[in-house]
């Protein structure tokens, strides 16, 4: 577990979080390479199923990164995303999985530092939780299939 390197998926909205991630790059701010970004136009596009599927396919943690409250380019997509993240947390709790494996974070386009900080914090959380319950029983290959 010491050397556990979690796989983390971050669904980032084009206008804020993805731009913030680029900004972190241009400022050469480092964050854990465990985080892999999938770009969406708005976090309102991120379906609860996408979060579940990410876990199913092998992610140890998934988070959705959208604009700050009230700042969504599309008015309220980030609030919708938050609601879906909450729903998935509920499902995970029912299944006996740690709900902390999914999260919603918010930031603005200029917040390169915040992006890196969030990535570090979330990675740390997942490292503490350990590998996804789906991987513990030695059927990791199944998780990826």
């Amino acid at each position, binding site marked *: 577990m010491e050397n556990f390197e979690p796989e983390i998926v971050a669904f980032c909205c084009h206008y804020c979080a993805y731009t913030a991630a680029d900004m972190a*790059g241009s400022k*050469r701010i*480092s964050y854990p390479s465990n985080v892999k970004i999938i770009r969406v136009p708005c976090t309102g*596009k991120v379906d609860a199923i996408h979060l579940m599927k990410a876990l199913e396919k092998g992610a140890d943690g998934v988070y959705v990164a959208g604009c700050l409250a009230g700042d969504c380019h599309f008015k*309220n997509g980030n609030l919708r995303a938050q609601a879906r993240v909450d729903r998935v947390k509920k499902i995970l709790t029912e299944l006996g999985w740690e709900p902390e494996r999914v999260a919603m974070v918010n930031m603005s386009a200029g917040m390169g530092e915040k992006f890196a900080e969030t990535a570090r914090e979330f990675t740390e959380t997942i490292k503490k939780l350990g590998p996804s319950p789906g991987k513990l029983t030695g059927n990791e290959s199944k*998780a990826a299939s």
Partner: protein
Amino acid sequence: MQKNNSSENALSPDRRVLVIGGGVGGIRAALDLAESRRDVLLIDKSYAIGGLMTQLDRTFPTNNCDLCTVSPYLSQGARERHLEIKPMTSLTKLEGEAGAFSATLVTEPRYIDTDKCTACGECAKQFPEAVRVTPGLDPRAPTCMRYPQATPFAFSIDMANVTDIAALKKVCRADAILADDTRSETVMDVASVVLCVGADLFDPAVLDNYGGGKFDNVVTGLEYERIMSASGPFQGNLVRKSDGRRPKKVAWIQCVGSRGINKGDVPYCSGVCCMYALKEAMVTRERFGDDIDTTIFFMDMRTYGKDYELYFNRARDEYKIRMIRSRPHSIVETADTKNLSITYALEDKPVQETEEFDMVVLSTGFRVGEDTKNLAGVLGIDRNPYDFAATHPFNPVLTSKPGVYVCGVIESPKDIPETMVQASAAAAMAVTDLPVVPKDREMDDIFPLERDVRGQDPKIGVFVCDCGFEIGGVLDVDKLLAAAKIHPDVAVARAVGYGCSSESMANIEAMIKENNLNRVVIGGCSPRTHETKFQDLLQRVGLNKYLVEIVNLRDQNTWTHMNTPDRAQNKAVKLLNVGISGVRKNRPLVDHTLPMSQNALVVGGGVTGMTAALKLADQGVKTYIVERAPALGGLARSIRKTIEGEDVGVFVQGLVEKVAAHDNIQVLTRSIIVDHSGMPGLFKTGIQTGVRMNYMQIDHGVTVLATGAMANRPAQYGLGTFPDVMTQLEMDSLLEDDAARIQAMEQVVMIQCVGSREPENPNCSRICCQAAMKNALRIKEISPDTQIYVLYRDMRTYGFQEEYYRKARDLGVKFIRFSLEMRPKVVETDNMLAVHTHDFILDSDIEIAADCVVLSTGLIADDETTEDLGLMFHLPRTIDNYFLEDHVKLRPVDMAQRGFFLAGTAHSPKTIRESITQAQAAAGRAQTLLAKKEINLGACVAKVDPDKCASCLVCVRACPFDVPFINAEGVSQIDADKCHGCGVCAGDCPAKAIQLLAYEDDQILAKLDGLFER
């Protein structure tokens, strides 16, 4: 791709703008004009356009590679239909007047047919002496082109060095050698001229004290850039010229040849050297080892641009760059080691120090070259005392000759962002010599018919940029490609160097065609900046532009994980798998378009807003100015005189009258914006206006934000407590209204950086040093015997403002430095003010009695306004609450949200002159958008599958823009031209009947599959 030497007749013969100088400024001006559907001829005396910027390794403040940032603009240049580029061409005669000039142009022979040349490099290989080479340290540059993304993409022969023309012709397989090419002269009608020739860099060889050009390891800032550059003489390896070894200790000496009065010096400040030295030092430590000792010797650290102070803080605090406030007298070379010793004095130590360095960089600044002086003569424009173009006091792009405009360094020393702003401003001014409404012209590129790839198995091409060291320096690109090739449907996997260079783009195009690829993955920069470029590439080879995936290997990988290359490699493989897996599911899509509103909304009725509005209105654009205050004028109303001595009140009044009289402008004072909707090109904004706050709604296609900033008034140094403590603004009024009071003052103390460059307002307010100089000189004029003390941290009288600083010193104004740790104190005893401060040179505390203390309080962002409008318009802000432009370097007036433009002090603190320039630039950029007449909505829209729809109304209720409705067939309908493409409906639909095109569920799931593939 359209060739750049299109026939003369393709452009209308008159009504064209001549842009002289193909650096970034000239390219920007030319592109702005071309995008506004004005015909442009861009000439440059060099054989490729690009200017100085293409020789730089990286540029501040983003520290990214210039080639990557400028190349999209360059190849855009080759594409624009209204733009003709003539390299190796100069102007020899200009006759006539604004609107109807006749220009005589002379083009030197290139001896190469650019249409035929494929830049294969065979001629360069076999006759290296005959091809023109990269300037810089080493004449044996890897390529004879100035940089890999050269435009035009062709060689140039130096016929003087050709001995056997027949042999040369023989090596050229393309038969492109034109042995009998000759100098040609063209006479052309032009309406106006934009001069953007930049300036030369000072050659320190004329100085005998620094060993420039004499000592191997003393280089200029530009030479250092070339050494670090991946396309430079050492392929991006930082080594000493004397022994090819990596230096361990590098020093920069600032102001070499600038801010001086000695032989070879110029008195002005070159404006950019502090920032470039910081950048070079940071990049040195970042790329070549944080064990390299980097030291900057400086007089004043002039980081006055937007967020530049933060950059300086980062350099000092995070990168641990040593800053020594001293101007060393000379450099001595040690004979055997070729090391360099510098003797310098420290401010707080009575003795001199001597220290040895491996390498010394001389931060040299700008000089106007002889060619440019001659050109000024040809154009008939006046020069200022330093040979730069003399310009209008309130309009820096106007020269002394009507119809001739100027931008960039030839106007005054400046950096890339300011050059870009001024270039757009000059382009906007040049348009005023053309007829108002251009005829509608077909503008779209004609791409070949799209191949139908539906039903075909994916045949994927994976192309990875090494981007010089940006990607290739961290990742093993070959290994990455090997990993990509494992996928059976990846038909081609290649490294493409700088993927965005013309050469690589042509290669990729060829490989797509040869292998009949139907899907493409590019591993390189962020799709945010480079997607369009590669989408265009696909269209050129007849593929739908949505069949490409851009994998962000640089911004989100090598840049952030540069210190852990193994992890970066691992992540790169995964990211590439995401791209490959994703692209399989990409489908050809069609973009939607809508006609655009031709009105403009200008928010803010200060000098900036009024200038922008007038510029737009003059071009026939119906313009609304919304101003919160009861009258127009803004902050400028409280300023009386500029540093040049111009009367601001008269100027502002003139603007107000022009605005009021303009048929195309509607002024709404006492008005606030209360709601906003729509999309770029079709905005609707609700305004409450007048004393009765009546509601009205405006349709507009573009929005210019000119909301300004506020005069700062922090309760520091007794401001608001002691009656004789005032701000520079108040002193400005006093100087105009109460000369007697000034004359009665024996001693005046000015304190700089009040409320700026401090944790709560971290940036420099930029305007205060010049404001202090302006007022000090005026006090001296009214009352020569008044003693003036200026307590400062760094004097930032950039550019030609330095002259006022020198004049103040000549008149006996005393300058005493202070630091944040030892800041001055203002005390009052017996109704008499005194300022206590520490004098570093005397190394003791001193007390100065003062009749008056003047605080340079600068500007702060109008937090409330930018927050409200930021929320309403969805616009990002900086950490200090100014609006944040789309790209600090290349798009300084465009906002990330299309259709929004930014000008004046809402962007960052600046002078009236600078605000006016940015206002013109914003108006010009807005026109480029309006000229398109229709808006491209893209293809990312929601699509309903009527067979799956359960008519449940979830989408109807969820859509933030009320677009979906249940149609006559009883199923949801989402009109593509109304859909904003957020995908909320798709995420909520319980029947999974809605897909967001380009982000369909199977595409997202495929990306996840790619990520977890093993």
